[in-house]
């Protein structure tokens, strides 16, 4: 078996399954065209195959399970962007990729092409369990306790066409991490899972009822230490309570967070425990053999590096300030000596966050082959990770990235903006998120300035559905419509790490025209009042938002 590094190697049964799924979807399209299916009936079926109707066209969201793909798959995505779309794709905050200009009639062919490389668009939308997201440094990070990808794959399989949970009250998002530094925003998911090794196998800490959207809520701990054998049983029980009792009368009250809020975490836990008491554990047990068989379909890379890799990187950094800066912002320590994990910023100055051209996708595939065992990951900040780069070859990689315009040193800095598609694409939006992201990114484009400003995340949502996660931006912007004019409301202090909280509204919304200057004034104020060693959130915590409020509204 010539398995890809970092992701599950498909077998015949998986490919037969995809073929069945495409045949099913083709039949559904035909029945829609013949009138056997109403639009109301067809809509959830196409959504569960990733097909949305946006403002101007159909959008196809392709699943990248736990954010990992191989170079052959990336090249196929490039081909789809080139052949069926407008020569670019957009990486999403759920580690997927979407194509914004798809023709309905070409969709079955696109799905067949995806299936050729073991990809699909299943459950990237709809009121079902969505693509499971995962730590972008899984299996690489020095701080990791346990590689969560095997269990992420198990969750993918378990949730795929689940007989009972395909018509839930609302969408259901699951994230899993194996690091003590929560990099998946576990507390902002319907279910967030933190995995760790235990004496007798893996243990899972499960959070429930978090989410953003109209009602941002931090999730509660449901169980602290679920053993591997009981993982699926526990999730089934949790979902069963939600399927039976989640609200279906109001789409804005239908997420599990509202049910958990209504019952209280203790009440909800009691209901889940009651389900568990009725279930036969034998029917749900996740056997170690099953786990081992899935694990065996992941190839492990040979991570040995040349003994002088670290010293050579050190020398390279001394010779080039810009490279040194990029290494500081865009790499993460690897557990293997001589290796390093790289975040490729898909946020060039003035660019559209998360958009990559077909040529860039192809080149990223090439670079993955040359530098990281053909493996790539998409992050929930809409960037790309090459996880296993040899340190002595890092300079070469950076130079190659610069050649395709993806060498910016801004990961987790002010230029690493997360923005929803906004009114440029989305029928729900009040405001255009992308132009303001581009203007901010251009204003703070200088990489040295970005480093000086330090860790500062801007998240932009074009409406209260919060797809740009503005609630968890250190600076969050929410588009609102005021008598036909685009305004933005500012929130400060949101974060989605282990200290998760939602940001506080700074004051009245400002007109789009004044937004970039207002953010610049906030940043300037921060730079003038911060103490040595402080990041933006530290200063905000120390001083409160008064100085920033004053700065933001200075000239208004």
């Amino acid at each position, binding site marked *: 078996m010539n398995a890809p590094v970092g992701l599950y190697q498909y077998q015949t049964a998986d490919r037969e399954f995809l073929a069945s799924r495409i045949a099913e979807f083709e039949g559904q399209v035909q029945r829609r065209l013949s009138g056997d*299916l109403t639009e109301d009936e067809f809509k959830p079926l196409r959504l569960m195959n990733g097909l949305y109707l946006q403002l101007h066209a159909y959008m196809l969201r392709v699943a990248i399970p736990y954010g990992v793909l191989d170079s052959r798959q990336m090249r196929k995505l490039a081909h789809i962007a080139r052949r069926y779309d407008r020569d670019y794709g957009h990486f999403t905050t759920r580690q997927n990729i979407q194509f914004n200009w798809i023709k309905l009639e070409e969709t079955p062919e696109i799905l067949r092409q995806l299936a050729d490389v073991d990809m699909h668009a299943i459950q990237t939308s709809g009121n079902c369990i969505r693509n499971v997201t995962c730590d972008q440094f899984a299996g690489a990070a020095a701080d990791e306790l346990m590689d969560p990808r095997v269990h992420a794959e198990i969750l993918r399989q378990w949730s795929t066409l689940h007989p009972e949970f395909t018509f839930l009250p609302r969408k259901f998002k699951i994230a899993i991490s194996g690091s003590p530094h929560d990099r998946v925003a576990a507390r902002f998911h319907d279910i967030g899972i933190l995995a760790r090794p235990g004496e007798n196998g893996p243990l899972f800490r499960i959070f429930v009822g978090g989410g953003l959207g109209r009602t941002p809520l931090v999730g509660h701990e449901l169980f602290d230490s679920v053993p591997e054998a009981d993982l699926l049983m526990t999730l089934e029980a949790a979902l069963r309570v939600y*399927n039976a009792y989640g609200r279906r009368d109001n789409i804005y009250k239908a997420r599990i967070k509202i049910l958990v809020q209504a019952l209280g975490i203790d009440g909800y836990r009691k209901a889940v425990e009651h389900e568990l008491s009725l279930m*036969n554990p034998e029917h749900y047990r996740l056997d170690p053999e099953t786990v081992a068989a899935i694990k065996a379909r992941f190839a492990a890379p040979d991570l040995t590096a040349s003994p002088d890799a670290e010293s050579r990187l050190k020398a390279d950094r001394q010779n080039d300030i810009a490279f040194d800066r990029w290494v500081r912002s865009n790499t993460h320590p690897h557990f293997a000596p001589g290796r390093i994990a790289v975040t490729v910023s898909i946020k060039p100055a003035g660019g559209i966050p998360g958009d990559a051209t077909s040529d860039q996708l192809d080149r990223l595939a090439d670079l993955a082959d040359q530098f990281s065992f053909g493996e790539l990951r998409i992050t929930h900040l809409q960037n790309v990770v090459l996880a296993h780069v040899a340190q002595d070859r890092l300079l070469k990689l950076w130079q190659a990235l610069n050649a395709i315009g993806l060498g910016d040193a801004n990961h987790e800095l002010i230029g690493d903006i997360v923005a929803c598609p906004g009114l440029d694409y989305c029928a729900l939006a009040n405001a255009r998120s992308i132009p303001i992201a581009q203007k901010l990114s251009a204003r703070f484009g200088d990489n040295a300035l970005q480093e000086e400003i330090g860790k500062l995340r801007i998240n932009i949502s074009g409406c209260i559905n919060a797809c740009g996660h503005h609630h968890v931006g250190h600076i969050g912007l929410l588009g609102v419509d005021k008598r036909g004019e685009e305004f933005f409301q500012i929130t400060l202090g949101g974060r989605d790490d282990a200290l998760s909280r939602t940001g506080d509204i700074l004051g009245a919304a400002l007109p789009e025209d004044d937004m970039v200057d207002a953010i610049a004034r906030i940043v300037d104020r921060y730079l003038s009042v911060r103490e040595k060693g402080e990041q933006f959130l530290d200063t905000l915590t120390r001083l409160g938002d008064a100085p920033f409020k004053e700065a933001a509204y200075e000239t208004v």
Partner: protein
Amino acid sequence: MKQFDLAPARHPAPASLEIIPVAEMTETTRAIRLTPEFDVETLGTALDHLDLIIVSFPIFRDGRGFTQARALREYYGFAGEIRAEGHLIPDQAQFLRTCGVDCVLLEDDADTTPWLKALSLFPVTYQTRLGLR
């Protein structure tokens, strides 16, 4: 209306049974129709004298009936007939069958071809591959 069998019924109920809304059932009731919000646990020992339980789908997107059917089979060992009625689409055939539903009630002129086709897709599911149930 006509019945479409998803699976050979475990215990097909006699056709002549009078179907009573669950809220009005008595000790002699043998066939009931559930409402989606009904908690099947409250049926208790009444299950022993039921031959037929109907799970209702007011709209196909309302998936509560799947959980009701599953609970009836799995938690309470109900061995009578479970029938689904209401707004259902053929694309749900396998899910219904897996959750323990024996048959669906369709309009007399409904085409059963897509239902048969739906049942023939996905011979192996991921859940069974994982060893569940």
